[in-house]
């Protein structure tokens, strides 16, 4: 029991090695770092995919391990994106405005500059005043802190209210859907202070790095995303490896029993919910500068449902499963919806994959849930021989003489 963390979890080492190899390969094939076999836009897609893998890890921790089917984690992801987006937009507009006003005969005052930035940013929603939520938008460090604090606090308050009232199961899922829907609807309003349905845009331009080509920037963000995914994986693996993992899996399987063991189930759920919200926020803060734009549609309820689908297809309750599911499904989705897949003419009807992809996704979700509840990650069990006993819940025979499953003899 005293072996090191990595020795007890060899899959972590394998995962980190695979991630490092992948990062190296992409770097060598990118336009900025090597042969140029991979276009800059595809590097961005891969970087975004790594961020989605990170939020899928969070989802696996909260759903696969703790058994809380949260259908609202993309709200935290989006909030993280909004927080970093505010600084990106403010700082970039500031450089543009300062440059254009410096030609004026009388040098502008600080207040004039701020007003001009406000007009630039909020002109699209018919305003020019900075709403209170933009109070710290001029400070990168403050906004970076808010990336963690805003999703974390929202999760803490929401989770405290929900778990304290012992809302569980499907009711909690509905509540989290309501939360993300309410947040999306609020942000859709022009007077919410975050530019309504226009969202925040131009996020791919990093202030102070205007001379830097996108091919280089995309690679930097790709590296940052890979690093965040690796660190997130280590953190999640560490959290679930020890006694804490034992307790949260216990909560998933039999909440009441854990309570009678003396553990405060609500405290543990709140801890996991908040931690995963913070991870989701960080993933979002890395995702949206690569996407370039964020608007309230990103945190619509369907986004969080997709997240659950990725984790289910990848395999709940194992961290690499979540990563595989998110990467596989989101890349496949990019491929199908990108219009590059040839349509299938059936004579009487032409199957256009842009429209039919969602049907395919829905069908595969149903099939995976029914026939392969372990998901894609379950394929690794075939290799390692870690098959669960298929006893349909019955006990093993009590004595050696009676019928026993083969695994009891191992």
């Amino acid at each position, binding site marked *: *029991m*005293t072996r090191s963390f990595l020795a007890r979890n060899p899959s972590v080492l394998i995962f980190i090695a695979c991630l490092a190899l992948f990062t190296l390969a992409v770097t060598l094939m990118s336009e900025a770092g090597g042969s140029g076999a991979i276009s800059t836009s595809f590097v961005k897609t891969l970087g975004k995919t790594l961020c989605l893998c990170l939020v899928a890890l969070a989802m696996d921790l909260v759903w696969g391990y703790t058994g809380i089917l949260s259908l609202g984690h993309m709200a935290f992801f989006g909030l993280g994106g909004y927080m970093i987006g505010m600084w990106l937009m403010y700082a970039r507009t500031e450089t543009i405005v300062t440059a254009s006003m410096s030609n004026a005969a009388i040098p502008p005052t600080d207040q004039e500059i701020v007003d001009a930035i406000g007009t630039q940013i909020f002109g699209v929603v018919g305003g020019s005043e900075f709403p209170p939520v933009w109070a710290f938008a001029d400070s990168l460090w403050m906004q970076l802190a808010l990336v963690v604090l805003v999703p974390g606090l929202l999760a803490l308050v929401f989770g405290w209210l929900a778990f304290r009232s012992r809302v569980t199961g499907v009711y909690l899922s509905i509540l989290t859907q309501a939360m993300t829907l309410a947040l999306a609807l609020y942000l859709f309003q022009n007077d919410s202070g975050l530019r309504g349905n226009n969202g925040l845009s131009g996020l791919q331009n990093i202030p102070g790095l205007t001379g830097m080509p996108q091919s280089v920037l995309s690679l930097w963000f790709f590296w940052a995303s890979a690093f965040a995914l690796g660190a997130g994986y280590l953190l999640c693996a560490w*959290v679930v490896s*020890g*006694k*804490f993992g*034992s*307790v949260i*899996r*216990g909560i998933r*399987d*039999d909440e*009441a*029993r854990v*309570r*009678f*063991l*003396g*553990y*405060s*189930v609500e*405290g*543990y759920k709140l*801890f996991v919910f908040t931690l995963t919200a913070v991870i989701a926020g960080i993933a979002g803060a890395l995702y949206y500068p690569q996407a370039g734009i964020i608007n309230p549609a990103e945190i619509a309820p369907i986004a969080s449902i997709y997240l659950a689908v990725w984790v289910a297809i990848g395999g709940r309750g194992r961290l690499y499963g979540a990563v595989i599911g998110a990467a596989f499904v989101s890349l496949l989705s990019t491929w199908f919806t990108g219009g590059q897949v040839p349509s299938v003419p059936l004579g009487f009807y032409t199957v256009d994959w842009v429209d039919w992809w969602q049907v395919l996704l829905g069908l595969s979700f149903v099939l995976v849930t029914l026939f392969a509840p372990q998901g894609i990650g379950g394929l690794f069990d075939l290799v390692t021989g870690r098959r669960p*006993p298929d006893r349909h819940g019955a*006990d*093993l*025979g*009590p*004595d050696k003489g009676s019928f026993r*499953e083969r*695994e*009891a003899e191992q």
Partner: protein
Amino acid sequence: MSQLLEVSGVSVTFDGFKAINNLSFSIGDAELRAIIGPNGAGKTTFMDIVTGKTRPDEGSVLWGEMSQSLLKMNESQIARAGVGRKFQRPTVFEDQTVYANLAMALKKSRSPWSVLASRPSEADRVRIEELAAEIGLADALRRKSGELSHGQKQWLEIGMLLAQEPRLLLVDEPAAGMTLAEREHTTDLLKEAAKTRAVVVVEHDMEFVRRLDCRVTVLHEGSVLAEGSLDHVTKNQDVIDVYLGR
């Protein structure tokens, strides 16, 4: 003599049905007590009240030297105060190893932060191996508890209770579904546990109660009908009428 647990004048009504009716019960340190009674006598509801699962309509449940009221605490606080409970059906975490099950139950800080920071220690391992030997599962520590037989699961659950080091053990039908040999082992475990702590056993099976050789409380329609040694209560005419005579 000061009592460990004092339940007095407790009543519970479910949809007009009085499950517990003005029940009073007390037990001291290091005492073994059996509770018997026909179906629906309120045995399980009584345990639910003590462990905080059900709130009584009236009455009081006082605990320990400080006479704390258990009614103001939730399930996990009551468990931390020193009340351990074994359910009728064995409820162990089937997806986890016997070792992990016992490790989770060990008496240690239960807060998320300290559990997150806790690392397996040598002292824990020794304690877990001791417990496993006591419940006859020393060879099964690395097995998933879902693979155990029914009787072994019952023992594992008793082992988890012992690991919690509770001052009061509530045990609901420990012998249900056990073979004769398993029953004898269970009786020994409970008697051994009762040397250092209070143990309350709810049981249907008279033979099992006789083997426990302890004071018996007979429940009927939510209140205490008789109390005393098994021979004493089995001679009681009321008890014969409602329970034994049928």
